[in-house]
């Protein structure tokens, strides 16, 4: 790797933003393998485009937007595959992404993570950007391309649904 100021800068951005990015990706997709790929892809794109940002936050938002798009495409592919599978077998099937089996191998999937995975994409994305991305409503709205009002409502609904799911989980476990 070239040891010039650009590479040093890239490494610095990488070290600072990686933790946030991997958390967002992992909690959105539930798969560490997919998340690693997505983060790798996002940073490569950053490197290729050779963007310089006025501050660290701008770099963070740019990367999060890329990650969000990659995740969105991944979710669409998953849905398409599930639908295709159903068409072929004429029966509904809950397709486990490889990630779920990975995580299930661990002794216990925490209740909160389980519940997060059960949230619909629209609610999961806002609560994850809020808690892991540490962004305010306006920033979340910009990244997702929705209105601030929408963000407000979805964050609240996500919390409501999580509360219910957590309680249910508690009874089961």
């Amino acid at each position, binding site marked *: *790797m070239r040891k010039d100021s650009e590479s040093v800068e890239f490494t610095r951005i*990488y*070290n600072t933003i*990686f*933790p946030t990015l*991997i*958390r967002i990706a*992992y*909690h959105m997709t539930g798969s*560490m393998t997919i998340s*690693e790929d997505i*983060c*790798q892809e996002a*940073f*490569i794109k950053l*490197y*290729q485009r*050779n963007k310089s940002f006025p501050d660290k936050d701008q770099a963070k938002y740019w990367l999060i937007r890329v990650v969000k798009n990659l995740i969105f*495409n991944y979710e669409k592919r998953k849905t398409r595959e599930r639908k295709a599978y159903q068409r072929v077998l004429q029966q509904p099937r809950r397709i486990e992404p490889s990630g779920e089996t990975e*995580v299930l191998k*661990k002794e216990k999937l*925490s*209740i*909160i*993570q389980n519940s*997060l995975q059960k949230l619909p994409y629209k609610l999961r994305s806002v*609560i994850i950007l*809020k*808690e*892991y991305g540490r962004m*305010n*409503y306006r920033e979340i709205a910009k990244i997702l391309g929705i209105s601030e009002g929408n963000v*407000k*409502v979805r*964050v*609240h609904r996500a*919390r*409501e649904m*999580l*509360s219910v799911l*957590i309680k249910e989980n508690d009874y089961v476990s």
Partner: protein
Amino acid sequence: MCPDDQILSQYFDGEVDLSTKEMIESHVDDCWRCRKRIEAFTNIRFKMLEEDEIDIDSEKEQVYRKIENDYRFRQRKGFWDKKWLIPAPVVVVSSIVICILFSALFVTLGMNQKNTIALKQQRALHIQMNEIQLDDLNQFFDSQDFMIEAKMELPAQGDFSIMGEPQLLRAVDSKRR
């Protein structure tokens, strides 16, 4: 009177104005129910941030190594290339604009003159786009649903290439018919 749960959620996120904030704070002091609601939000946030599943440091190293081994990282081909680089969305947007402009130009001509003149036969526009895959373009087009779409099922051998200037001609004028 308890504030709406929605407002409590916003307050919890620091997304209310100062006067609302003060109002809620003083209410919460005396209201057990609202305190419980906020505790529930806190609980969710706390549980989400309890990080027992991801080994951040090891993941960080692992992914960085993958990046270092990625050929695109090593080459940085697209950036140093002298070819004309245009981001794909710009190309798509400008091609739509060009089409609209041509159409507009044509309509104007048509309206101004009794005998409409066909557009001068324009030479094709060629642009080389690097760092882009057909997959990316397909995703872009997927989001637009105004087309008749067909996947061409082809024998494996043979392929496509730009064979010359695109042509529009009458069937009777075509030698191959």
